[in-house]
């Protein structure tokens, strides 16, 4: 119901068709692309719609909000993104629930849709990071507490904002940057961002993570970043049947026993059995299906979370993850 502009511009959804379970979408319209004082976008998680298509039950034709600049469908038209409304999205959700995520097409002819699907490459074989990642390095914020190198596999704006607001100068690097190359900015910490697709395909980032961890560099992995950290340490990932998508997922912090509601969007997960061979230990656990939602390194300043501590869309309950990371950076430096 809320968060469609954030979700649709989330690079992790690149190449996917997004089906909204809430039947009334677009109620508060779409604002203009406005940036905050640090040049980070408000209400959007990247500078354009990232999803390939949208499925909704009903899209508001008369949106209402003082910040609204246009209708949702106008925005999609402008960015040439297809969508379809009038579907029983609940039925579709139940279908996806039982069959798992699948390839799909939005079409007005079943025949053409089938043809398109036959021709399309399978989603899981595609490497999306290259298309959503920044091409050049960009910096945000001021250096109060240090510098952070953020490896952009499809980073969300609110991750940048969450780091900048904690006093870091954040430099965004392309997804395939090497550990040596980022040394030029003398980072005191590295963040591996969220992003679309199968983590196994992200070998440059995996290598970077391994080197960084070996060098005792503070590392924070978020979402895809967690899977990259896990693989870099020898753990394995697997594809979840249903995936975790939504703003209402409970996760337990195994260090404190506290449970909080988190925003999630991931189709892969770290295999907990495979951790035995590594120095990684579970940090967060999903309270519903007990899968791994966060990791800590036993000896190195490396932490990672599978959910989105920056919310957007979704709650900010676990945003303290950023605080812990920034403490880690200060600890290591001193």
């Amino acid at each position, binding site marked *: 119901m*809320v968060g469609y502009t954030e979700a649709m511009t989330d690079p992790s959804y690149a190449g996917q068709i997004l089906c909204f379970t809430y*039947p009334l979408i677009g109620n*508060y319209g779409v604002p203009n692309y406005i940036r905050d004082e640090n040049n980070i976008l408000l209400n959007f998680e990247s500078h354009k719609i990232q999803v390939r298509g949208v499925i909704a039950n009903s899209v508001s034709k008369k949106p*209402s*909000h003082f910040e609204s600049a246009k209708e949702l469908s106008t925005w999609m038209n402008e960015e040439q993104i297809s969508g379809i409304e009038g579907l029983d999205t*609940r039925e579709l959700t139940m279908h996806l629930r039982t069959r798992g995520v699948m390839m799909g097409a939005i079409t007005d002819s079943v025949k053409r849709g089938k043809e398109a699907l036959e021709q399309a490459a399978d989603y899981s074989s595609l490497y999306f990071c290259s298309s959503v990642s920044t091409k050049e390095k960009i910096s945000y914020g001021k250096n109060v507490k240090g510098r952070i190198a953020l490896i952009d596999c499809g980073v969300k704006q609110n991750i940048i904002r969450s780091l900048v607001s904690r006093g870091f100068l954040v430099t965004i690097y392309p997804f395939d940057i090497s550990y040596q190359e980022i040394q030029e900015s003398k980072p005191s910490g590295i963040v591996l961002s969220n992003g679309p697709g199968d983590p196994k395909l992200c070998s440059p980032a995996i290598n970077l993570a391994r080197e960084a961890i070996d060098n005792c560099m503070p590392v924070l992995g978020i979402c895809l970043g967690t899977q990259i950290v896990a693989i870099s340490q020898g753990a394995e990932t697997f594809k979840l049947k249903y995936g975790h998508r939504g703003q209402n997922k409970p996760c337990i912090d195994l260090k404190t*026993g*506290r449970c909080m509601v988190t925003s999630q969007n991931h189709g892969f997960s770290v295999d907990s059995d495979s951790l035995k061979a590594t120095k990684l230990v579970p940090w967060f656990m999903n309270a*519903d299906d007990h899968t791994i939602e966060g990791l800590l390194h036993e000896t190195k300043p490396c932490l990672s979370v599978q959910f989105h501590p920056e919310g957007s869309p979704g709650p900010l309950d676990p945003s303290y993850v950023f605080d812990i990371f920034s403490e880690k950076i200060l600890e290591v430096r001193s």
Partner: protein
Amino acid sequence: MPLDRAIKKVIVLGSGSIKIGEAGEFDYSGSQALKALREEGIQTVLVNPNVATIQTDPRLADKVYFLPVTVEYVEQVIAAEHPDSILLSFGGQTALNCGVELQKKGILSKYNIRVLGTAIRGIELTEDRDLFKKTMLASGILVPTSEAVYSVEAARVVAKKIGYPVIIRVAFTLGGRGGGVAFNEYELDNIVEKGLANSIVHQVLIEEYVGSWKQIEYEVMRDNSDNAITVCNMENTLVMRVHTGDNTVVAPSQTITNQEYHFLRQVSIKAARACGIIGECNIQFALDAKSERYYAIEINARLSRSSALASKATGYPIAYIAAKIILGYDLPELKNSATGITSACFEPALDYIVVKMPRFDFRKFERVRRELGSQMKSVGEVMAIGRCFEEALQKAIRMLDIGRDGLLDYKPLGSIELVENALVHPTDAIFFHVAEALSLGMSVEDVNRLTWIDPWFISKIKNIVDTDQILKLRGKDSLDKIDRELMLNTKKLGFSDSWIAKRLGIPEKETRELRKSLVEGPFVKIVDSLAAEWPARTNYLYASYDGRSNNVTFGLNSKNAEKKVIVLGAGCYRVGSSVEFDWCTMNMVWALQKSSREVIVINCNPETVSTDYDMSDRLYFEELTLERVLDIYQSENPEGIVCCVGGQTANNLIPKLALYGVRLLGTSAGDLDRAEDRAKFSRLLDELGISQAKWIEVKDKESALEFANDNYPVIARPSYVLSGAAMRVIWTERNLEQFLENAAEVSPDYPMVISKFIQRAKEAEVDAVSDGQNVLIGAIIEHIEKAGVHSGDATMQIPASGLSDETQAKIRDYTERIARSLRIKGPFNVQYIVRGSEVLVIECNLRASRSMPFVSKMKGINLMEASADAILGKSIGQYLERHPPLFKVGVKVPQFSFMQLEGADPLLGVEMQSTGEVACFGENFFDAYCKALGSSGFKIPLSGNVFVTVGGTELKKRTLNSVRKLAEMGYKISATEHTGEFLSKHGLSDVTILYKITEKERKPNISDALAERKLDLIINIPSSMALEKFADMEEDEYRIRRKAVELGIPVLTNVENLDVFVKGLSWLKTREITISPLTAQRQDK
């Protein structure tokens, strides 16, 4: 943290009677809490005088005390029971206030009792306006500019500083009681005076008014380890201007962004933390529609109407989980009962929209002000679920059962000027006015400017208006023009078959067939708390035209069941139909389940236990309309439908359902008609040789006037009504003419009877069950007030000790003969007039009655269990064996909510006006009566000043004795000029004369005595002619009554009540009140 094993015995405080602002939702939350406690093997002691509730059945609590929820009584129960803990958050404001006082008086520490859940300090932080403000500001949460004051003078100073308009809020009250918006000093004075009188700490808050801002609410759950979630948020369509209880509310919010949503969510959790909430709380925000400004308005540190709504809106069992948290569990340790696997520490995802609408009963209250504002006035509510706002809104309007067939079924005001005015001053009809404004061509923006309703909602309403136009135009031409697309669109927007029928000019039955030939549906969908993302195992259903398949199959679901049965609930609470019918519904459900039936409930009231999805085998949260009941019936194909436990709403469907050949369980539709049709019933009584008042069926005006001429006063009674709707006592020809002209509009379908109104006779009634042969007489109930006061407003006692054995035998005989001749199968109620040795029948209702929970608990016979057997065609012979009642005497008294109904006259008459009731039990009449009176909020003055004003010599004579007794007991008597003279003449010395309010300059004046709160009891009995409410009200008398109500001074307006009250007072001064609980053992005895 797991269960706290130190908790062994808990005293639970209930909310008492149903009143405006505190209604059935507390039966729901209390029942859930008791269930949660019982599961843990914890003993429970419940204090709640609301006899009609489900929680006061011994099936839920170990011991139930039917006593006032006040410090004096609760302390006695504590002393007798020695509980180790107390639960305050499940009994509304009543329980919370009582808890705060118990703490202040040191009673909790004296008996070493622990408060479970939010601490008393936390409650004070949320309730005390000043503390609340400070707590919020300390946590960086913004609140409106405001200041707490303790006097009218201080209020003026603060209001001037803040600038008008200001809103006055009263500490420690519910439903915005005593508060209001003041646009000037004059209004301020009035509201503050009332507010101070209503606050237990004599404090009010003067606050900046943000009426045009959005009103957004969050429901927060927080456990002992500081895990916190928000179950749901809600948006009030009529923004801040209207109290949330009177607002049309949607869940989830529709017009706020992700950022706003999560910002307010975060603040909610922060606020709950600041107040130390353990369990559940509701928090309300004002959010500017034009900027990012917001204010936290208030927190309810307890289960509330909103939390009940949120619970039903999401399928998340808030009260149950809150109770578990209070017992020590943490959220992650608890499961989401909708899935059975996933955690309870999550936030439900909805894939539908919920619309809650309030039900008002202004028609029943003379002189009441209909404009909505910061003080709650509604008496009930409905909740509709749809896949779009239009669908849910139109469903909700029909659910209200106010005779409106959707949004466009209104009487137009006719002109733009009138409509504009109506938009600026919203009443219960505001949505109809919005629809009219749009159909008159007003723009969405203009409607928004006048109503402050968000344009998003108005656009949706415009959608309904526009679609209706198309339907109207095409329908005029020919039926062929109604194609699938139009029909589907119309149904998706929530139009009923009967409305479409009206537009097409064909009968509903034909429309139904046409609709079925064009579109499929409605489809049954599941409320599962997670938008279909996980397989859910709930049986919580609604119907919608969105989609193309059902989420359920319609076979038998449980292994033990042989057949399935549909039970119709009672719909929204209103005057005359309240929690008692929910008790009847649930007890019927349980009894049918015992007889191997799978039971499907249809109901639409979020304040009930019967709309908890785990209470029946299947729950349809749906309309109780012919169309929807038929839809469900045809899909489910049950053994039959039970219509006799859902009050008049369900009962009225019987003849309509019968026309469609629906299998109805219980008394046949034909026999029902013989009782409901007043003329047929009167003829039947004549045939049986059973006496009744002289009567005539009204066929034309002339014969009615002629009959009435010889028989004034007469009573006019249309058929098929509950709680005296449209029933009138008529004293003059002019009034009768007026009445006949208006009557047509009340209920055109059903015939009317006029009969002689018998004055000063006694009234009695019988609650009974029959299987067609055997007749189980639950009890003969005697009314204290004489005939003419509606039975729902009467004080009642069991046993009927004021009736002779002969009279009682006659009543039994009549009851049995009527039952057999009507071939009654199920519950019924017969009302009688007793004059000397003569017994006359007034009416017979072939359905469960308001007093059946009272009778069942008093007697220890569950009338619903017997009814279930009768309905299924079994003999009820086993129930006939006589056994002694559980208590010696039971007294039931009504609960009024006049205070909240600005302007309403607290006089009793044939129209029912009470919103609830209480019953207490005792060793003798006065023992039970005094407790019951105290339970209804009547402050019994043990000394002080009594003011008397009585109309007419005859009534003065009849009150003389009681007034004299009061004087003898040491009360100081004052009176109006005439009454005073009369009293002095008859030997009362020392009567102070107070002059009329209208003669302000004459001193001492009544208005001064009232304002200075020098009066402790007011006896205000107008002449009987004034009982006839069409007659001109005697202004002064009315103003005294009204003022007394507003200041919380008890008023007696009826001679019989006065006599009983005075006798009770003298009893109270010399005797001890007993307390004795209802227990399961007691019932099994």
